[in-house]
């Protein structure tokens, strides 16, 4: 019951589907920060420690965001879903909470790029679901917030007598991504937000979606290690198995969360630094 798997095992099957690397969401382009970590000089023997660090920090934020996003679009005990307006507002708040806890524009961009792949699945497989519509509406709300932020910046530049926006020159050297990523089109929901809504549609429990995020991150690092360092694939798989208690502890910690403000905010300063450097690196095997 608490696991939320339906009597037909639908939750378990959907969990297997969503955790499968063959899912067409572009996961093969990702190393979960491992490539920049190794470039920065991390010894491949420390990958298990790197996994621990992620599960305690950025992956925790991601898992908690997915759990809260799932919660805010779920029907309550009476079977009544939240009104689509309320669900959209709550999703937008969850989105802002994630963004506030992800100070690196490189990490936000990566998550939003990955979110697009999951969004394509969600829109096609659950077309017309009110929860999908709520996510679209949340994107409109966040787009409007970003536009309002820019209007405020513009007012400041006018006050200062600056011609044109500072962001234009920033974009030219690729460092104005914070503003430019969502500049001329609608805001792109980050992966954990899309995953949370997908979990609601697919019938996953909060615990399942949290485990999914933890497992996926760990497996991404392990698989990427094989392409970057001479490691026996069985050893890499062993790291994932060894991380299981940490993944489960993370899942139990975040599964009860319902309030966007309660999403943990554990930062990993080096992961952020490496991600920013990697985003400006041209010769690389993985996009992030």
């Amino acid at each position, binding site marked *: 019951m608490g696991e939320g798997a339906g009597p037909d095992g639908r939750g378990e099957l959907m969990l297997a589907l969503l955790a499968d690397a063959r899912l067409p969401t572009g996961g093969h382009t990702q190393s979960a920060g491992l490539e920049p*970590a190794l470039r920065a000089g991390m010894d491949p023997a*420390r990958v298990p*420690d*790197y996994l*621990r*660090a*992620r599960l*305690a*920090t950025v992956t925790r934020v991601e898992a908690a965001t997915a759990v809260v996003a799932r919660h805010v679009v779920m029907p309550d005990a009476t079977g009544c879903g939240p009104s689509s307006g309320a669900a959209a*507002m709550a999703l*937008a708040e969850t989105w*802002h*909470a994630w*963004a*506030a*806890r*992800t*100070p*690196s*524009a490189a990490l*936000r961009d990566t998550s939003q790029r990955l979110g697009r792949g999951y969004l394509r699945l969600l829109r096609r497989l659950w077309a017309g679901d009110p929860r999908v519509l709520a996510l679209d509406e949340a994107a409109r*709300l966040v*787009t*409007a*917030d970003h*536009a*309002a*932020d*820019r*209007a*405020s*910046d*513009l*007012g*400041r*530049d*006018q*006050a*200062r007598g600056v011609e044109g926006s*500072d*962001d234009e*020159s*920033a974009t030219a*050297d690729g*460092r*104005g*991504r*914070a*503003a430019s990523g969502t500049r*001329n089109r609608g805001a792109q929901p980050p992966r954990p937000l899309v995953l949370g809504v997908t979990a609601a549609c697919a019938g996953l429990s909060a615990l399942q979606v949290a485990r999914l995020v933890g497992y996926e991150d760990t497996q991404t690092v392990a698989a990427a290690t094989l392409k970057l360092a001479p490691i026996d694939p069985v050893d890499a798989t062993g790291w994932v198995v060894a991380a299981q208690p940490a993944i489960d502890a993370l899942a139990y910690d975040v599964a009860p969360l319902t309030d966007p*403000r309660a999403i943990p*905010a*554990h930062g*990993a*300063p*080096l*992961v952020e*630094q*490496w991600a*920013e450097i990697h985003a400006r690196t041209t010769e690389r095997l993985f996009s992030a």
Partner: protein
Amino acid sequence: MTTDTTRVEVHASSGRVRLDLRPGALSPRVLSTGPGVARVALVATRALLLGGDDVRIEVVVGDGVELELVEVSGTVAYNGRGRSSSWAVDVRVDDGGLLVWDALPFVVAQGADVERRTDVRLGEGAVALLRETLVLGRTGETGGRLRSRTIVDLSAPRHPRDSRAADDSQQDELSVPREPLGPRTADGSRELFVEDLDLRDDRTLPGILGDGRVVDSVLLAGARPPAAGGADEPGARTPSYLRLDLAGPGAVARHLGASTHDAGLDRVVAAWVPHVRTTRPDARTGETTGAVRADRPILQTTGA
């Protein structure tokens, strides 16, 4: 054990500023005041920070006022001999206000166990620039345990309708919906930056701090800093620090490393402070204090 509260509150009052200062573990001393501007020093009144100390600093900056806080010495959290300590900063900057606090290093000595908390609430058009230099251990030490949490909230309504109506062409281009956005939360505020740095047992893991023992940060909240790599950002070509542009109006410049102090972030402060001063909404009215502010030298800190 009682909490020891220091309070600095400043409001505009008939062309001058009115200060409400309450000494606690730190004693606030007025360095200078001018029309809508105040500089206040925070001076430790006793040995800080000892095990069992709960230091709290409350700062309120009224509408349109600029407050600069100046520290005369860094802070060392000493070995608490099994007792933890806390350092909590509660900042409120009202509409159009500016707080500049280029704080000196906060050193967590061997055996210390410290909880730091920085809560910032910004009104409409309000800006805060805060320096936080966390140093784990004095020379030769690996340092104590530190958890440092920062939460910055933007009040709603952050953007009144008239500020957007000012540029209709841009609005059409962006297809901004015309209906009000509505509050994000019960109190209508929106989180800008939330970070919980857990620098206790796991901080040496790869990806958190590794071998580093210094996290030196400049947080600008409520406004975007000058363009990265722009002419007014010295050292931007080969920065010794990382610039994190937040999703909302703000940025963090951060240096991670082994050294106690990085001059690159002093230059960031020196570049960002004049930028936010000249882009404050009241600068638009061309009030007389503008020239005074622009001419005033930026406080240079030398660190510990």
